């Protein structure tokens, strides 16, 4: 049993750490793609699709008049007005951690507080390319360290489960958004095998969720757009895939229900989405429209978040 507020803080702590990492990876992929010559699929709107992948397009347009990489880097890495900027995420995560110091382990606190302290060494002005790389590497490592310390040091009780729910729900959300922004390059029709200009787009998607190597291990062939979609939506063994996220969401919600001796709306909600993902294949997803499919998953993520909040966090 936990204080509802503690469960809420743990859930959002994990969500924001995960989000910081996702934003860093998306920014990393955009940087890489935009540095390619146009002939290799690089294009100027890479920066805007990075913003879109974080769900921040509307906010961005309120804040900036241009679409320069400088503005996008500022928005995604530093802007206090962007709820998904790396700095905001780490600040909110740390503030949540501080509110529940008693519910997290010393190692977890150390990792998030350390990240928060270290972040101050990256001022937003005068950001150079190498410095940006350092920042992104640092954020990814901080998230890994946090995740690892949670995994290795937390008691396996409801506090742990709520933290994991936050991570997986955020991850499911990020994966769906990243795919949705690029869904047009993943369409199978009339795609010549190999040599596509979109190769770098696909690899950039995989890179933004750290799945390039995994792809090769799973399929043992060159990048095919529909397989990229298959990997990130349906493959259970891929820890970023929607199926895998929902498998974990279902699992941890069931653990909570077992501990508390009571099932509820959030368990039913997660199970329904998980079943839907399990009982489909990538052809069916394409047939029904990938964009529509992803939009419905994003909507289900939101509903699940609301159900968890309603059932446990208030």
């Amino acid at each position: 049993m936990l204080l509802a507020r503690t469960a809420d803080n743990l859930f959002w702590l994990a969500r924001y750490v995960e989000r910081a990492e996702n934003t860093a990876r998306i920014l990393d992929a955009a940087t890489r793609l935009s540095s390619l010559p146009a002939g290799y699929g690089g294009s100027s709107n890479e920066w805007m699709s990075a913003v879109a992948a974080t769900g921040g397009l509307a906010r961005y347009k309120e804040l900036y008049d241009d679409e320069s990489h400088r503005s996008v880097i500022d928005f995604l890495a530093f802007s206090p007005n962007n709820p998904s900027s790396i700095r905001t995420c780490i600040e909110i995560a740390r503030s949540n951690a501080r509110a529940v110091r008693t519910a997290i382990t010393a190692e977890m606190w150390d990792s998030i507080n350390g990240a928060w302290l270290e972040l101050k060494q990256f001022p937003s002005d005068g950001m150079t390319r190498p410095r940006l790389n350092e920042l992104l590497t640092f954020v990814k490592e901080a998230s890994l360290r946090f995740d690892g310390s949670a995994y290795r040091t937390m008691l396996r009780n409801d506090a742990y489960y709520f933290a994991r729910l936050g991570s997986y729900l955020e991850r499911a959300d990020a994966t769906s958004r990243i795919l949705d922004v690029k869904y047009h390059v993943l369409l199978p029709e009339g795609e010549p095998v190999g040599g596509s200009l979109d190769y770098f787009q696909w690899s950039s998607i995989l890179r933004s969720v750290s799945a390039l190597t995994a792809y090769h291990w799973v399929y043992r062939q060159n990048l095919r757009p529909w397989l990229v979609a298959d990997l990130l939506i349906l493959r259970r063994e891929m820890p970023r895939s929607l199926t895998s996220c929902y498998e974990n969401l279902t699992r941890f919600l069931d653990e909570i229900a077992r501990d508390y001796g009571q099932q509820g709306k959030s368990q039913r909600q997660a199970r329904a989405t998980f079943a839907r993902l399990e009982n489909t294949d990538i052809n069916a997803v394409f047939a029904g429209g990938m964009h529509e499919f992803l939009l419905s998953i994003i909507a289900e993520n939101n509903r699940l978040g609301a159900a968890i909040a309603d059932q446990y966090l208030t």
Partner: protein
Amino acid sequence: MVTTPFDEMTIAGDGCRPAYNLVKAWLEENDLDTLRHRSHEAELLFRRIGITFAVYGQAEAEERIIPFDVVPRVLTSGEWHRLSQGLTQRVRALNAFLADIYGKGEILRAGVVPEDLVYQNPYFRPEMIGLKVPRSIYVPISGIDIVRVDAETFYVLEDNARTPSGVSYMLENREVMMRLFPDLFSEHRIAPVENYPDELLQTLQSLAPDSTRGEPNVVLLTPGQFNSAYYEHSFLADRLGVELVEGRDLFVRDATVFMRTTQGPKRVDVIYRRLDDEFLDPLVFRPDSILGVPGLMSAYRAGNVALANAVGTGVADDKAIYTYMPEIVRFYFGEEPILKNVPTWRCREPEALAYVLDHLDELVVKEVSGSGGYGMLVGPKADKETIETFRAKLKAKPDEFIAQPTLALSTCPTFVGDGIAPRHVDLRPFVLTGADRVRIVPGGLTRVAMREGSLVVNSSQGGGTKDTWVLDAPDDTGATPSSAPVDAGASQSQPQAQTTASQSQSQGQN
């Protein structure tokens, strides 16, 4: 009239008091660079742990850390023994006094303490009159500020009977010292303080009301993470293994307190509250408080929840009541106080006021209700103008002030950047009073005035802290028994050659 203060390490000339032999040797062994390096390491550790505090009224000062001095302060077990007897007596007297003034009021009727000092005291809570406090313990947790003026004399400078803070520093200072200087601890026999949270939990559990079912549910109520002592609140809740709650996590139904959990409401039996009286219950005290719990006082009155400390204890740690503590001890126990008060003039008494006005340049004058080193006059350090302003304040409202001689507070060797120098210190031991007994862990928080000559040790005024050692044996020389480690054999290691071979095999296939 300023005499050379008593230094706890050095005897006039070059001698060393025995308690400090090892510390002195250690200081001589380590050069300044080592100490500087260690001090820096200590600061990093504190920052890393997040042991911070906020200073009110300083926007830029969010989350500062208190300077930590690496040179420990040492007390012998004999000194400690006498102190702890005195502390026990003092805290028992505080409890007896509170039970009396919110009960029969005998001490007032006997004319030992003037009624107006109690009834017109801003911390007196009429709501507490006749309220049955669980186990009749008003002050389960107190911090008594002690100063030393010579080898024999310890004075009580102030009683803290509301929500004393600083115990996390006592515990963390020790942790950091043990990490930085493990050798020192193996050479000395230093009484441990790490069991404080256990003692605190037992104390709190012993207060659980009769209506408690099963294991009492203890919680720590904090004003939230913007409070200056938030770190300590979370630290203690963590060590106690109890929930750290805010007002919004609690609610009252049927005169019973519940907390909101992921599994619905759960009954709360004991609240270690680090929230001031006036914020506790907006229905009874400040109606604009959003930090408290509406209805809490009704549950308290019904005897369904214990508050530690009780409501209204501030009246006993007030500086005006302080001056009566020796009489209070005599009144309830018929004993002489073991710990003395600092000689004090009560400015409300005309002869005392006359004396104080004549000697303002020698005295320390304090506001009766002030704390944290705010609003006081340190005569010998003040310029003429300040003294005259204060004189006017004092004449206008003499009731609100007390005066004390400028004490030659003892000094301890302290690392000051370019060397080791004596700096003034005080001591705040923490006294726990449960239904069963009084518990005091051997040690406390030593605060040190880091500026040369300064007597103000408050952290809000730039004071620092030191680890406080109570030596375990009377004439301790430091030899500790060691036991030979048992060799359990080497641990398993990965058979190397084989692994490499099979790995390269599988890689070759890809």
